[in-house]
């Protein structure tokens, strides 16, 4: 076992993890953060996206041990019913949510873009969301929601 220290959703944790344990396993099984989804386990689908030290990563491709010393945001750390993040609000209002399995990863990719760039172009939005697959093929509304969230945030 390896001892790691990390901050998840603004809370510090010390965890003992297996050498082969992935970050997604530590988040889901040790911290009970089940909003992080596993779609493919090989970094193709982006359902397991989390923000690690200001960058989006596929948590299925990061070993838990590699996250030692890092600051992580999962979907549970973004907004709530009383005060949703502008991205979450836009996703709901535009109808960018279908089966919902890609949604946490989509929201995190969009949030991370807007954290860095309040006035993204359509191309920048496209690039930021390109690591997240939606098999319901709801891309049009997802991209529109990110655009609306950017406009709201820029106000």
């Amino acid at each position, binding site marked *: 076992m390896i001892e790691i220290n990390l901050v998840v959703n603004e809370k510090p944790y010390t965890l003992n993890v297996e050498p082969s344990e992935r970050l997604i396993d530590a988040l889901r099984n040790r911290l009970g953060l089940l*909003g992080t989804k596993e*779609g493919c386990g090989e970094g193709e*689908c982006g359902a397991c996206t989390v923000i690690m030290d200001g960058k989006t990563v596929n948590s299925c491709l990061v070993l838990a041990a590699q996250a030692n010393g890092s600051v992580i945001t999962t979907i549970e750390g973004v907004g709530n019913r009383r005060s949703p993040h502008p991205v979450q609000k836009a996703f709901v209002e535009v*109808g960018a949510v279908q*089966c*919902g399995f*890609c949604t946490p990863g989509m929201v995190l990719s969009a949030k991370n873009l807007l954290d860095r760039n309040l006035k993204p172009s359509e191309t920048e939005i496209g690039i930021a969301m390109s690591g997240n697959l939606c*098999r319901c093929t709801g891309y049009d509304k997802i991209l529109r929601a990110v655009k609306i969230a950017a406009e709201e945030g820029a106000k």
Partner: protein
Amino acid sequence: MKSSVIGSRVVREDAWGKVFGQTKFPADVNLPGQIYAVVIRSPHPHAKVLGINSEKAMSLEGVVTVLTAKDVPNNSHGVLFRDQPVLAEYVRMVGDPVAVVGAETEEIARAAAKLVVVEYEVLPAVFDPEEAMTPAVLPLHPNLRPTNVLYHMPIRRGNMEEGWAKADIVIEKEYSTQHVDHAFLQPEAVLAYVDERGHMVVQTATQYAHYDRGEIAHALGLRFSQVQVKTLAVGGAFGGREDISLQIIAALMARYTLRPVKMENTREESFYSHSKRHPMKMYYKTGATKDGKLVALEAKIIGDAGAYASWSINVLRKSAVHASGPYVIPNVSIDSYAVFTNNPYAGAMRGFGAAQTVLAYESQMDLLARKIGISPLEIRLRNHFKVGSTTATGQVLTGSVPLDQCLAKIAPYLERGGDSQ
């Protein structure tokens, strides 16, 4: 009429839970004391299982049990016919489940699954549906059909001889489509347990909870009232969750061990454990007059049902009904077939057999237009269904048929000749 509902936007009630990551999918539910189950699948497309040795797997610490065909009370399920085994003694496709191991953790279950030794007698397999149709090939389901032809749908309209006599231009081509996987984003997952009443509870993502319930009850020898299927958030389906995948196997393991049983497919296992879109071979012969009016169509459509029937009959029926496209053709002869092979089984997928034929009939329209010397738009305008048109199956269209409006919208695209020019 003024309404506050029609024409206004509605926020779907599950949207908020999904954007906050609160929604429970089957992979997200767990119970204290649960074990994990992993399926051992056949690497052969056609084989008899001669024996299964689970001694080595059982000797691994943390393994609870290994179940095989002999442990299934009624070893069959299926949406149209119960032609699919829960755990196979006779394998008809790569990926057929032959055994399931239950263990204290997922890691142990996966390690143990590799230690289960299955002895097979490998049989010759057939992968080409046209070959499978020939009488020389032995039927895969002799109890269901004397040959591998599961289904034939003929459609006849008008008089073919007259039709061909009127045709100034005839285009004859073959088209084929491939297997497609739904690849719904959430791989299959199940939590099955026996509750305090002794009833089997199965929590899963399904398109067809009431059917799952019946098949679980049948396979396990339980009454309907003893089985409860709870549909959690589905995580995409597109037809791929209409058949049984892990539901019965998980319930079987729960019944034997009296422990809650969790199963989660990897993406690779998911590819093996649900249906595919039917690959189709389509032979099309379409005739038109020199002024661009369709006069005759002869089509033969062969759908690869793969190893099990699933929804193949309904799918190939739909292919036949849609084979002439949205066009008036007075003389039609269509034959659509669903054929068993040792390929992965095919079932429901978005469009349900109507999608494949589009490739054939629309390509034929473009080729006819080019040969006649009119635009792709013009040939469609001269032939599309209107109110009062009769389809190839004899249906008179009396309702809304706004194809002219659809064509008007895409007219600039079609007049350019599509993307190619």
